Structures are given as C-alpha cells and as structure tokens.
C-alpha cells in the first residue's frame, strides 16, 4: 500500500525537478542508513538495532529498494549506474567487516601460536570439552560391537543424545535412544547404559538434567569426572535413581558380562 501511495505521488509530481532530486537523495540516504545499521549490528550484536530503535534492518533495506524503484522510473542511465556502484562499494565495505569477524572467529593468531596442538585438544575446543571427552571415555570403555542405550534425543543432552552426532565418535557401536523415565527397550537387549547428566542446562519437552531417571541393574558402573577426567568403579553395578539427587553424574553402566 505504501508503495502504491508513493507511486501515485510520484506520478503526480514526477515531472518536478525538485521532487526527482528529493527521491534521488532519499534513495541514497536509505541505502546509507541501511548500511550504517548493518555495520552497527556487525560491530555490536545481531539484534542491536531492533533492541534500541525498535525497527528491523531489513525494513530499511525494503525502503531503500522502494526508493530505488521510484528513482529508476525517471532517471538517466548514468545516475542509475552511480546508484548501483554506490551499492556495490557499500557491499564491499560490509563484506570486509563481516569477513573480519569471521576470520577472527577462526583464530588465525591462535593457530600460528599453537601450531602443534593435538587433535584431542582441538576437538575439545570446537565441540566442547565435556562432550568430546565423554565420547572418548565411552569409546574406551566399550567394545566395538557394543549396543549402548543413550538419553532421549532432546535438550539438555543436545549432542550426547543425538545418535547421528554421537555415532561419529563411537562407530561401529550401535546407539539406541531410551525415554527419560524408562528404557523404552528391553534393558537385557543392550550392553551398556550411559549415565549422562547433560551437557547443557536447557530443558526441552519437559526433560531435565540427570539421566537415566529409572533404576538399572547391571554388573558394573564406571563413573567419570568431567573436570579431572578421573574414573572410579562401583562393582555392585546397581544404579538407583533418586529424584531428590540432582547432582552432576557421568559414567556408564555395564549390563552384562
């Protein structure tokens, strides 16, 4: 509707030189305003403009597009080309700023200073120390042909409950999702059950930290401390879920010998 009104106004006053100049200035100003707001968001955070001025940057771009369309209706080729080149120069500047942030995020200086960092340390840095170390702990504690019961696929276990994700580290072991409060499958059909506190504190579908939330009778439990990496064993193999105990526990239950 806005465009229709503008178009009508343009048709009425389009011949006036003053009006045409005003449209040209408006087109360039909107382009500049869009670029400024975009750069501001790049330098601060993604929703900066909306949280401070209560409008979205893409609406500024839309205004610039509408102005440019009106501008085009009655302009010389030279000025149209100037508009396109101006936009492209701004694009170049925007890209430089965005790319600088991307390059910084990949830590080239860190790379040059730590050129001999081990694969394990790099993985800990990229996917998270707890997730990677826990996956390696599980791999070391289970044979290649093991079937392992893992939490239901949701937060707070975003990575350690995702079969497709976790299997990357544990292949060819077979991973099966259980439910939060019951194993969902015959527990005697699996070889191991994870004790997985959850790598985040985010809740999804009502699931909360600590898993499994049911009792498991196995032959042996190996606990793992994510901070020190130390392990210790409970030879009874009896895992009792206590709803009052929400302390952080990690480990693996061996179901049968």
């Amino acid at each position: 509707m806005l465009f229709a009104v503008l178009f009508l106004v343009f048709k009425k006053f389009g011949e006036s030189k003053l009006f045409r100049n005003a449209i040209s200035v408006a087109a360039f100003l909107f382009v500049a305003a869009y670029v400024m707001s975009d750069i501001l968001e790049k330098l601060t955070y993604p929703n900066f403009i909306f949280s401070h001025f209560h409008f979205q940057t893409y609406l500024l771009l839309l205004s610039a597009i509408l102005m440019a369309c009106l501008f085009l209706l009655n302009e010389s080729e030279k000025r149209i080309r100037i508009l396109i080149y101006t936009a492209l120069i701004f694009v170049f500047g925007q890209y430089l700023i965005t790319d600088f942030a991307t390059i910084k995020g990949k830590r080239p200086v860190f790379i040059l200073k730590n050129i001999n960092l081990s694969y394990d340390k790099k993985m800990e840095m990229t996917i998270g120390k707890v997730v990677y170390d826990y996956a390696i702990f599980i791999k070391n504690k289970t044979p290649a042909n093991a079937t392992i019961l893992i939490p239901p696929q949701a937060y707070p276990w975003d990575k350690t409950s995702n079969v497709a994700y976790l299997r990357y580290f544990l292949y060819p072991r077979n991973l099966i999702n259980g439910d939060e409060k019951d194993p969902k499958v015959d527990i005697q059909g699996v070889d191991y059950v994870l004790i997985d506190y959850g790598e985040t504190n985010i809740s999804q579908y009502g699931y909360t930290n600590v898993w499994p939330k049911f009792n498991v009778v196995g032959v042996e439990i190996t606990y793992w401390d994510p901070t020190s990496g130390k392990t210790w064993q409970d030879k009874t193999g009896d895992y009792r879920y206590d709803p009052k105990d929400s302390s952080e526990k990690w480990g693996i239950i061996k179901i049968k010998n």
Partner: protein
Amino acid sequence: MGLAERLSVSFLLGLGTFTFFVFLFDWIFNIDYSLNNTLSLLISLCVVLFAVKYRETIDFFKTIKFEKKKPKLKTILFWGFIFLIVAYTLLVNLYWPISDWDALALYDFRAKAFLVDPSLIHASLSNDYFLGYPLLTSLAHLFVYQIGLPNPKFIYSLFYLSFVCIYYYSLKRHTSKNSAMAFTIILALLPELLIHSTMAYTNLAYMVYLCLGTFYLFDWIKNKDRWLLYLSAILIGLSSWVRIAEPFWIVPISAVCLTAIRNRKWKDIVRYLSIFLIFYSSWKIFSSYVSNMTGPVLNAVKLDYFSILKNVNFERLFLVTNYLYTYVFSTWGLVFLAFLVVIIVSIFKRKEKNYTFLYITMFFLIVLFIGTFGFFIVYPGWQDIPDSARRMSIFLLPLMLYSIALTTNNENK
C-alpha cells in the same frame, strides 16, 4: 580457456567424476571402497581419457605458453589478494578438524564408516540416515583418509580457489578486465562463500557446480561451441551428485531446451539431458533400490505440483514472499537491491542489450519461490528452518553478481 581456468575445471570435473565412478563400480560390480580399488579406478580413468584424447593432450602440452610479459600492478594486487584469502582458508582447514554438526552427523561420518565397512550397500543398510545426500564430498573425504592424510577439509579451499578462478576468467570473457577483477573480489569476499570454504558442508560444492554449469551454459548460448554444452551438462549433473533434493537443475535444462528450439537444434536437448541424467538418475535409482530393501532412505517431503496450483491464493503468496524476503533476500543486502535495479533497467532497455544471463538468474529465483511455496503447502513446519533456506539459496549470490557485472559494464562483449 587459459591454464588456470583449465586446472580449476580439471579439479572440479576430476573430483566429481572420480567419486561418481567409485560409487558406480561399488554398486554395479560390487567393488568395495578399498584404497587399492579406488587407486586402480583412478589410474584406469586417466588412462582411458588419455587414450581417447591423447592427440589433443599432447597438442595442449606442446602449445602451452607461459606469459613472459611483466604483469601490471593491479593484476599482482588482485591475485595477491586472492592468494591471501586462499592461504587463510587453507590455514584454517588444515588446522581445525571437522567439527560442524552435519559434517559429523553425515558427510564426514560416511567417509569414516567406509573405512570400517567399505561396502556401500552394507554400510547403508547398517546405518540410519546414510543416503540422505549423494556421496561426492563423503567419497572425496574417504580418498583423503585412505591416502593417509588426517584432515580432508583442504578440499573446500580448493573448491573456493577453483570457483574464484573460473568466475574471474568467465566474467573476463564478457566484460572488461577491471570489471571482472572488481566483481571477483566482491565474490571472493562474499561472507557465505568464505564461511563455507572452511566448513565440510555440501553447500559450497553445490554452489560451485551449479554456478559454473550455468556460466558455461551462458557461454554456449553465446558461442554455440558444443564442448561448452557438454561441460555445462557435466557440471550441472555433478551438482545433483552433491545435493539432489533441490530442483534447480530445471533452470539450465529449460534454458537449453529454449535455445535448442530457437536454433532448431533438437539434438542439443538430447545431448544435454543424456549427460545430466547419467549423474542424476544413477543416484535416484540407487536410492530407490536401497529403499526397496529397507524402507525410505530419506523422509523428504514430496512436492505434488497439482496441489501447489490448487492452493495458490493471495494470502499464501504474501506469506511466502514475506518469509523469503525476511530470511533470504534481506540477508543478501545491497546485492539484492542492485539486482532489482538491474532487473528494472533490463525491462526498460530490453532491446539495447542481451540480458540472457539475467533472465536465467531470475528463473532460478522463480524456482526458489515456487519450491518454497510448494514446501509451505505440503509441510506444516515450513517456517522452522530459515537457516536451511538461506544456505540452500546461497548459490544465487554469485549469479546475481554476475548478472550485475554483465548489465552495468559498458564494454559488454
């Protein structure tokens, strides 16, 4: 075609066709993915190609000339700039291991799985969500692992370098050298391109094959050189060997059909389609072959084109336009604005210049719109994955820049 462009095209064609033949031989002849088999296949392919084209190959090496004249400062600065970015991506790719979600869940996982279980059928049957995408990048990763290298991410730097190189030489054929350099630098700085050049996702490879296939198709439309048609058909075919769910191959095929009909050269359609279908249909047939054994390999939403037509109304069109503008077009920023300006200019001045490439790019946009609309009709959660929609359509940015370069250049050849 200069040496740098030839090398870039060779890398892309070589990687694509080699992985494709590795897949075909495993499927048809049950030759598994061991290092000996893949190396033997690679050597055999090279020998066969050399035998077929040995005269041209020898002629090429005899006639090849390296320019002895001193390059201009702007050329040195241009290539220096490109070299710096490629060096950065190589540094990042060689250092950081593969850690992006989809790469761990599928693309690189398949390569790791083949190291343990080198039979495609067996590996597909033993792992859920294994055949969701064709195998180009996974088999490329596998080959890198097999030859003893720990990290295959450098392949994405080579994709980036090849793309930028071919983009420059392709644009130079149609515009001035300065314009080609300026637009290639903007392309090289494209944030999406730079991000994907350091990620083991399929979006970069898809963009490279689809865009380059379109550039060579445009060259064919202008020059009528049949080898360009074949090259375009192979590249578009290989784009479907990277990602098969997206229907953007419709655009180059339609362009070939229209050109062939206009020139009354019907055989060009058959030639193009035959080459494209070798790549496209092989994976389709293989997927249905495995799904007959197990059930669907990919729970992809299937579009019913009649239901799209039946469900067209203004409100839905507005919703889809708004969604696409908010999550896709607006993220392209001023490139989108410049592209719209170019479209309007082309409408007013359609008789003064040849806007074929612009029309092809607009057709890609129309397919994106129709595809999103179809997705909206058949899938209730269509709005939940704006990131995927943006990633899927990043190939339009190089095409739009190319259109702008062709339209704005005074020396449009």
